[in-house]
């Protein structure tokens, strides 16, 4: 316990989207945080953390934030014995938020190494440090493709959309077993798809919700360039043209096999809910941080029309997408969003009993046109993350 009676939280993943927001909120609330992470070729961990805090408009708080470079794939997190012991002694709780978030089957080994195999060392640390609580940030999709009703329970399926989900499900099971055997109080927190701040639009990551928009924008720009610099020769061939009202008419069918939506939560809600859970945890419990009303892709397309000044994008529900002749723009769009497609027509319902109890029924803001525009404006301003990279984030 830190001198001022606030627990000291060892946090992994503080250089990532969710972890950085958790870190900022924990510091705001007076916690002492030990960020456990790694350096990059260009910056040390503490430089990276300082850059992130700067983005939050915060200074590195003296005495309440430590950074320790670790390697979870090694015994004692790659630390020498005295350092490891010191870390064990200093840590009261842990939030394990680091994760390889790649969906790529090609990276299976790497994903499993980061998300599952490294848990041996992290859980050993949890035991060695006799943590008061171990909180694991998982994903709602760890419940897999097991029907539409997803309970706040450990996964009991082997059917997953991708290697990421599979690894997170395996991690949950390993954590639950280990923590029970070693009497380590623990929680599993499962957010659905997280986007930027609903009030400001700010975000550090631009995937999921952002990908279809970013893809459409890239495709729009290809044809705008053709119209502007090439007399629109190629565009004409595919019926793409500039309308009199200044809108680009871009006939593009997004074919989804069934109806459904995206289960979106804003980062501000995730942070509030997660903090309330951490402050009021029930051991062994699983919490879905989800939205009771998923957003349909049709709505996003409608919001996007005036935002991007593009008409002609249409959602079609058909379980035989191969029946559709695709023009080059459609081919490219399909390729862009291939990995995210399963999350765009999802009709799983996430049980929130534990979450509602722990968070006094706190709910996420309803996704609407204003939030969409705010978030996308910020994404464009940040060049979909490129600008953040230049800021060392």
């Amino acid at each position, binding site marked *: 316990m830190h001198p001022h009676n606030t627990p000291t939280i060892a946090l992994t993943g503080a250089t990532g989207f969710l972890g950085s927001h958790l870190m900022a909120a924990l510091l705001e609330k007076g916690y002492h945080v030990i960020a456990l992470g790694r350096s990059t070729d260009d910056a040390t961990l503490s430089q990276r953390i300082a850059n992130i805090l700067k983005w939050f408009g915060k200074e590195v708080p003296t005495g309440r934030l430590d950074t320790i470079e670790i390697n979870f794939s090694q015994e004692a997190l790659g630390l020498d014995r005295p350092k490891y012991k010191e870390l064990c002694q200093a840590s009261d709780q842990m939030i394990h938020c680091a994760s390889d978030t*790649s*969906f*790529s*089957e*090609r*990276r299976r080994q790497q994903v499993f190494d980061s998300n599952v195999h490294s848990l041996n060392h992290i859980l050993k640390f949890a035991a060695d440090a006799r943590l008061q609580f171990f909180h694991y940030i998982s994903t709602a999709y760890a419940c897999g493709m097991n029907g539409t009703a997803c309970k706040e329970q450990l996964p009991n399926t082997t059917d997953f959309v991708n290697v990421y989900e599979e690894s997170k499900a395996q991690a949950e099971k390993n954590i639950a077993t280990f923590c029970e055997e070693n009497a380590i109080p623990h929680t599993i927190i499962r957010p659905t798809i997280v986007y930027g701040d609903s009030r400001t639009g700010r975000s550090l990551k631009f995937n999921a919700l952002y*990908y279809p928009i*970013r*893809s459409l924008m*890239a*495709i729009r*720009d*290809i*044809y705008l*360039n*053709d119209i502007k*610099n*090439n007399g629109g020769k*190629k*565009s004409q061939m595919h019926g793409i043209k500039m309308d009199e009202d200044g809108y680009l008419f871009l006939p593009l069918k997004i074919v989804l096999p069934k109806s459904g939506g995206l289960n979106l939560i804003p980062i501000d809600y995730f942070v509030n809910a997660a903090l309330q859970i951490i402050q009021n945890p029930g051991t062994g419990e699983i919490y879905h941080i989800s939205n009771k009303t998923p957003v349909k892709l049709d709505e996003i397309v409608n919001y996007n029309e005036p935002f991007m000044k593009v008409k002609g994008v249409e959602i079609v529900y058909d379980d035989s997408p191969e029946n559709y002749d*695709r*023009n*080059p*723009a459609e*081919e*490219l769009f399909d*390729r*862009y*969003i*291939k*990995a995210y497609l399963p999350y765009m027509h999802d009709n799983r319902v996430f049980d929130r009993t534990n979450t509602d109890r722990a968070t006094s029924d706190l709910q996420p803001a309803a996704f609407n046109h204003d939030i969409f525009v705010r978030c996308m404006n910020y994404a464009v301003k940040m060049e979909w993350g490129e600008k953040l990279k230049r800021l060392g984030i």
Partner: protein
Amino acid sequence: MHEPLNTAKNCRHYAMCKIDFLGSGVCASGPEKHYVSFYPQGRMDLYAALAEGKVPVTEKCLEIADTCDLCGKCDYQCYFVTELRPTKAMEALKDYVADHLEKSGEVVKEEVDEVLKELKKIVGDFWATSDRAIAVTYSHDPSPVAEPTMPDYVIMPETREEVSAIVKLLNLHDIPFAVRGNGSSVMGFVMSSGAVLDMNRMKTIEFDEKNWLVKTGAGVTAFDLQKSAQERGYRVNAAEPSALVCANIMCSGIFSLFSASYGTAADNYIDAEFVSKDGTPFKLSDKDAPNLFAFNPSDGTIPAICTSASIRLHPVTGDEEGILIPFATMDEALDFSKECATHRIGMAIGVLGGEYLSTFMAPTKKLAWEIKNTFQKELGIEYLVLVIGGKYDIKTIQNMELPTIDQELFKALYLGMPSLRSANWLSLLKEMSDDEPFSYLKLNGFTDLSETALSPSPEQLAKEVDPELQSFFKKLFDKPEMTDLVWLNMFRIISSRMGREKHVVALIIYLPIDNALIAEIDGEFRRIAEKHQIKNDYGFITPLDNGKRCVFEYDYYLDQNDPDEIAHMQQALGEAAMMIEGYVKKTGTVKSIFQLFTQGFCRKENFLYS
């Protein structure tokens, strides 16, 4: 440094100004007067020598300066390869001479000694000289290991009889000599303090189509021979376009991407005529001819002087195309190339570095730098296998369902290259299709999309070059051959661009296609270069003999005028040679080009498997 002098001193000596590879015509005085001194390369050397006080203004100096009419053709040619503008040096040369005449008027008339008189009797007055304005253009090359050496005589024989008579005369007077093609081996091989025999007047080309042969004189360049063959519907195995074919056989046996099917060394000639080092003419097919088929590790001297060679003609099927297959790792690229070679798929095969698309294709260094990132980092193209083949080869590769860049897409990427700088739609593809690298290439309509996004056009690409050259380059890029992978590779007019940024020293070995061994040696080349702070890069690998062996080129680069870089390069080359020697001994299968130099007429089997 004064700009014209800087230009002159940066001539790479790749002799590209001696061939009409852009269809612009070559410097008019060159084909008439033949000495390299009357080509832009020689004039640049002469200007540098005058400016640095190494030679006086001589009679030939006036003639060399006078025969340049500042037409500007060499700017097109040299800019294409190196981005240099030789006309600045030409103007400086003319100004220097005019200035000199105005100031002192003294023009040195070189002495004609007895040997020179005899030589002139053999070849004619104009074709043998001791004039230092000419000799100096034969006195050096940018090799970091060769000392400049001024020859006493430069001689240009036209016939085998003349060569024989010259050799006898030089031997009689104990005068050492070097035989020179176009000097583009750039290893200091073609210098001598005695005489240099420049073979460039021996330009006969005689086709014997019934026997699928062409007899080529020792002065014929690869470019000119390939062009004549192409006009008749054939192809020959040729490498650097400016290399003289006979010189190239003698020097390296000619390895090219086409060696994958056409072979190398003795695979490509039927017979050859020589003059021995004592002046005796012989033919390889003579019963008691010296056995040049047998491989003798090179002692660095040529076994005889080749005056002509009868080269094999290969058929052209008319349905040939090039196709590029990108890979993220060398292992995958090697496996694929071996697969093609063992199954005899494709006529030409090369495992190229990812930089091929930027360094070789981009018309300027700046653009090459800017788009290198797009290809390598954003698209993850670390290696490319280029295959040239007929329709059945191409179909077979397409059936393998690999992502490919076909001729049409290549053209779009080439002529739309400037737009690649800001093609974020492309980088997005890599980010989003991580699962299957390059799978975007399989999208239906990807070429159409690329054309839409990049707006490829000769105009767009030409805008990258110096403003005064743009109208020429626009017309040039509009020529179908400039974007045709088959033409570009059979004439190889862009490979010399690898020396654009800095002079290149190629390290070449022959070895089995053993991925681990190749990776190890590749790593060693890199380690040695980095230790000596030398720019370096993987060059290419071409399978030979059905994939049993391959030729592997790794490149080191240096600023040819920087003494520090020269010193570093000398150390690095020494270490690299020792490293290669170690593998030669250890493996019994690795062979070095150093063993082959001057032995290129040998049977490849004797060299590779002995």
